[in-house]
């Protein structure tokens, strides 16, 4: 196996994977474990990755699978029954806007948070996200639009008024 190529892949993508894992699990320790598990699975299948330039979406998909395999059956403390309309935020104090935004991101339902984080942190296109989530590109775009509008509506209602109708 190409140990050097794998090492380079680990060093290049581990930070992005760690951040994505954090937003999936919302726990720093679990995020580390998830990244380790994902790379362990990636190592076993490394020879099957023919196009090494496609490593990033491949790794993100593996991490999603690891997460789904391990967590979604046993959601110990994660509750995602929240609807976008139920998201709320207190009026941010001076300098507290980022904290509020973080809280909102945490509270965003998973089916909106996941594509948003794949785009914001992973830099993936709508088509790539659609392939990873196994949904249509149109559906991805709708989720991204709604997620951003929901965040803007609470953080900056004036600006959100200029958004198109996303209902």
């Amino acid at each position, binding site marked *: 196996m190409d140990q050097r190529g794998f090492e380079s892949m680990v060093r290049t993508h581990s930070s992005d994977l760690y951040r994505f894992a954090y937003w999936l699990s919302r726990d720093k320790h679990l995020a580390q474990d998830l990244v380790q598990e994902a790379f362990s699975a990636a190592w076993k299948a490394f020879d099957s990755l023919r196009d090494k330039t496609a490593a990033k979406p491949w790794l993100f998909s593996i991490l999603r699978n690891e997460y789904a395999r391990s967590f979604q059956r046993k959601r110990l403390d994660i509750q995602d029954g929240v609807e976008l309309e139920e998201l709320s935020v207190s009026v941010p104090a001076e300098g507290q806007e980022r904290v509020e935004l973080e809280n909102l991101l945490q509270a965003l339902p998973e089916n909106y948070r996941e594509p948003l984080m794949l785009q914001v942190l992973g830099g993936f296109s709508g088509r790539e996200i659609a392939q990873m989530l196994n949904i249509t590109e149109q559906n991805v775009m709708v989720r991204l639009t709604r997620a951003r509008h929901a965040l803007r509506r609470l953080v*900056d209602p004036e600006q959100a008024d200029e958004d198109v109708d996303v209902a």
Partner: protein
Amino acid sequence: MIDCKKFRTQKLADPMCRDAAVQAHAEHCPPCAQYAAKLEQFEQKLRCCAVDACGDMPPDLCERILEQTKQSSAAGNVRAARQSWFTALLDKLGGGGTRTWFAPTMGAMAMTLVLGVAGLISFNLSNTPSPMARSVIAHVVSEPGIFALRDQVPANAVQLAFAQLGGALEGSLGEVHHLGTCMLEGKLVHHLLVETPDGEATLMLVPGEALDAGAHSEQGYTAAFIPLPKGSLGIVTRSEDTARKLKARLERSVRVQS
């Protein structure tokens, strides 16, 4: 040329979109250009927030991953070497499947030898540590920072963790410094750091198979297991003596829930 509605929809879905049609619209529509600029500012804020919230990735995570890979490769090489040796032996005995003169007597001899070798190998394997014993030790070694934690862990949280595997704890384990959840072999496990009367120990509540493997020591740690109805209680300590005493103590104080 796209209209304002289409432009804003596209930008809201992907504020960094640089499609020619999107660019062209912004050049001819100042309100939409302003809208896009504000959206890009918001996007920057969103990205900073998403990155900052995670904190920095632990600096040793890459090394841990690479070390894990090396160990897995080394184990794979040993397996491959065993396999090729075994295949070569079969080839010698069986003529490699290419010769037509393979006599029935040779086949019988080969089978006898193969069974003998297989028996020897399975005996050896039964003396090797369970993969889970190695995994719990590797996990403890990979998280040295946990030993410094001094969390306030409610007693009912510990009880709940045991209850999830069908166990009930009678009496106190000692002082519980940490209770967290970790990934181990694709399973979500509860990880406890406990100061017991026998010494400091890591307990791992592993769902799934009820392991009752013998103790195993490596990398300065000893791991032992107690089977529970819905999994196993892994005990990891720095000395064999502590592991032995603690296992005996826990076998007395963990009762199976009916």
